[in-house]
């Protein structure tokens, strides 16, 4: 079965810096890879999707890359702000049928 690994430790960064999160998977390359944000006590919120034939996707201060050779996605938050502090989850969708497999998440704390 697919194993998904995200940064094993929490990420603490200074405001204004770039946070880089990794999502590695072991088996098949999914058709789609998604990133979600989750705040304490709340449900996840969809951020971005990248397709297997796309190398990079951007949305405002967020950038996602997808390398099917390395079996890895990188998630960047540029010009980070304290409001970006949250847990970020990557999720793989093998066929684009909503059946998501989630990573454990990486907790990001941005210091003012």
């Amino acid at each position, binding site marked *: 079965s697919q194993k998904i690994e995200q940064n094993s430790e929490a990420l603490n960064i200074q405001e204004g810096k770039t946070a880089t999160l990794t999502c590695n998977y072991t088996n098949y390359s999914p058709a*789609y890879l*998604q990133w979600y944000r989750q705040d304490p*006590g*709340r*449900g*996840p*919120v*969809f951020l971005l*999707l990248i397709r297997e034939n796309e190398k990079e996707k951007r949305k405002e201060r967020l950038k996602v890359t997808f390398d099917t050779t390395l079996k890895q996605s990188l998630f960047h938050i540029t010009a980070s702000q304290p409001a970006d502090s949250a847990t970020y*989850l990557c999720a793989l*969708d093998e066929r*684009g049928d*909503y*059946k*998501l*497999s*989630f*990573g*454990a*998440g990486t907790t990001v704390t941005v210091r003012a």
Partner: protein
Amino acid sequence: DARVTQTPRHKVTEMGQEVTMRCQPILGHNTVFWYRQTMMQGLELLAYFRNRAPLDDSGMPKDRFSAEMPDATLATLKIQPSEPRDSAVYFCASASSYPEQYFGPGTRLTVT
């Protein structure tokens, strides 16, 4: 501001009791999901429906869990009998088109 609602938000029950969790998806969303989140296992898809018909429930323990959509505005997840290992946060999510899923606030279940 349309959102997914879940009731109850918190539930404490004794082992062996029946638990029913309810979800009202966003009006017009035809795909509804049930997830479970624990520290050990992370976020897992239990089951999902499209146009009220079950599409996939392979993530759900069949012997004690059941999920239904009595109508388009209500989804239910039932556990009978409950066990301590069922303690988790249960999320409902809904979607109208791929890929964005809208998650509810969750039901925190504690089984003693």
